[in-house]
């Protein structure tokens, strides 16, 4: 039932991107998001798109699989674009009742759509190529300086990794309970919204109970293994940069430099590239 949600899931395969140090992937994703907001011309977006395409090609994850994850947020995307299209003042292109679509709005909507899609594709590429454990490892290491300000970095990372770890389990659980209640005649697809909300009770009550039960079991298991927070804790597989990680940083900063340069030469770009 939840097979369609691929957003944020790990995709098991082997590629350069999968083998990269998770820290660089987190940094790269962050800088990529920044670069999307640095871009202010078609040329800038083109460079970002090419960079993303190259990364997707490197990741060995089937394009169809990645695009399937987009389906979940397609509606959000369309609404955002419509808002931009109709609510931006400027030269009127066409009119739908009281709503006026402007030329500026159209350009803005397209840019926004492209920017949002790349934003989501870019960040989902990170989760597709990094296991949740490695991801939180990277977060923990990257946030370590914050410990000086008494931020409980390890605890935050641990909570994150537990939360991520439990997403698939809870999904499976939801699927199971849903099936069990459907087998008892429950209807989760009623058209009546009130009935539909009420039909969630037989799903949510058991789900919450099982979540609490699991949390309890996990806490017990952690205590049985003498878990006591991050102080003095070492790692079985400490993160270590290798040659390819340094190369990746070089590529990343090269790309970022190009993005920034393009922003300043906007006026000098030929034809549509400068829009």
């Amino acid at each position: 039932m939840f097979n369609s949600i691929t957003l944020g899931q790990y995709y098991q395969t082997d590629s350069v991107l999968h083998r990269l140090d998770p820290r660089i992937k987190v940094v790269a994703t962050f800088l990529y998001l920044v670069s999307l907001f640095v871009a202010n011309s078609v040329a800038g977006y083109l460079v970002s798109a090419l960079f993303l395409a190259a990364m997707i090609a490197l990741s060995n994850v089937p394009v169809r699989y990645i695009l399937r994850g987009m389906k979940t947020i397609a509606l959000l995307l369309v609404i955002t674009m419509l808002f931009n299209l109709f609510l931006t003042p400027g030269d009127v292109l066409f009119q739908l009742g009281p709503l006026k679509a402007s030329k500026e709005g159209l350009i803005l909507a397209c840019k926004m759509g492209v920017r949002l899609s790349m934003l989501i594709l870019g960040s989902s590429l990170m989760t597709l190529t990094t296991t949740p454990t490695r991801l939180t490892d990277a977060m923990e290491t990257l946030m370590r300086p914050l410990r000086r300000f008494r931020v409980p970095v390890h605890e935050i990372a641990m909570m994150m990794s537990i939360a991520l770890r439990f997403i698939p389990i809870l999904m499976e659980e939801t699927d199971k309970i849903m099936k069990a209640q459907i087998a008892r005649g429950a209807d989760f697809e009623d058209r009546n919204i009130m009935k539909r909300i009420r039909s969630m009770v037989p799903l949510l009550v058991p789900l919450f109970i099982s979540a609490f039960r699991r949390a309890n079991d996990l806490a017990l298991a952690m205590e049985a293994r003498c878990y006591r927070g991050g102080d003095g804790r070492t790692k079985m597989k400490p993160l270590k940069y290798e040659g390819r990680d340094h190369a990746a940083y070089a590529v990343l900063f090269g790309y970022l430099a190009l993005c920034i340069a393009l922003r300043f030469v906007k006026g000098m770009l030929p034809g549509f590239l400068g829009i």
Partner: protein
Amino acid sequence: MSIRIEDISYYYERDTAMQVCALDHISAEIPDDQFIGLIGHTGSGKSTLIQTLNGLLKVTEGHIYYNGEDIDGKDFDRKALRAQVGMVFQYPEHQLFEADVLSDVMFGPKNLGLSAEECKARAEEALRMVGLEERYYGLSPFDLSGGQKRRAAIAGVLAMRPKVLILDEPTAGLDPKGRQEILDLIAGMQKSTHMTVILVSHSMDDVARYADRIMVMAGGRLLMYDAPQAIFERSEELEAVGLAAPQIIYALKKIREAGIPVATSALTVEEAAAEVLRAVRKSGKKAKAARRQVHV
């Protein structure tokens, strides 16, 4: 009221790199008033198979006919099918949600659109069938013991008065006494109501005692579908797919190897004991020595 399975296949994650063939061209016919044991190793496809039987999973290929009607047919009423083919999932107590036991059991009948009195009558009948007494009706399901919770959950399915009852490992996680009680209960219900029961298990010992016929699954295929005795004759094949005949059959085989001419078709310890006694008495003196061997 029969179920006919015609050449069905089921794939998880179809058309992706993770495609798994869970059911591989299965055909079978399940007649009325039968106790069927469905045996297979973890991942053999037994859970998938039962979910296709009441339309929770739609088969990728092939057809399933319930009373001659294709359950994937356009105007087939799947909701009605689910009322007729009751399904008790693994750890069914995890689906309890109401404030008290009686209301929880009434959930199924209520979904069938029955009147409040009818729902209550059916719920009480179901609870009686599973042996939960009236003093439990008003309790929260979460205050019951493990075995009682499971009975309440099974009653929740029984209250819909299914013609076919499918149970997925109903004894998982129970102690030996609880297992026996649940199995006896199911067998007793089958005899008194004449519904078809499909009992999924990975333990031959559980199934051997009650089943009229046994389905053996391995790697998504239906390997055998026959009477228990015939299945256990093929114990080598069973072992090849990680299953085994009931322990008692192996004990009987050992006894025969030791020189006592016993038949190895017994399914329960009681039957086996009777068979050993019969064989021993028959062969008289010669067996006396061997009997000592057995006791050792």
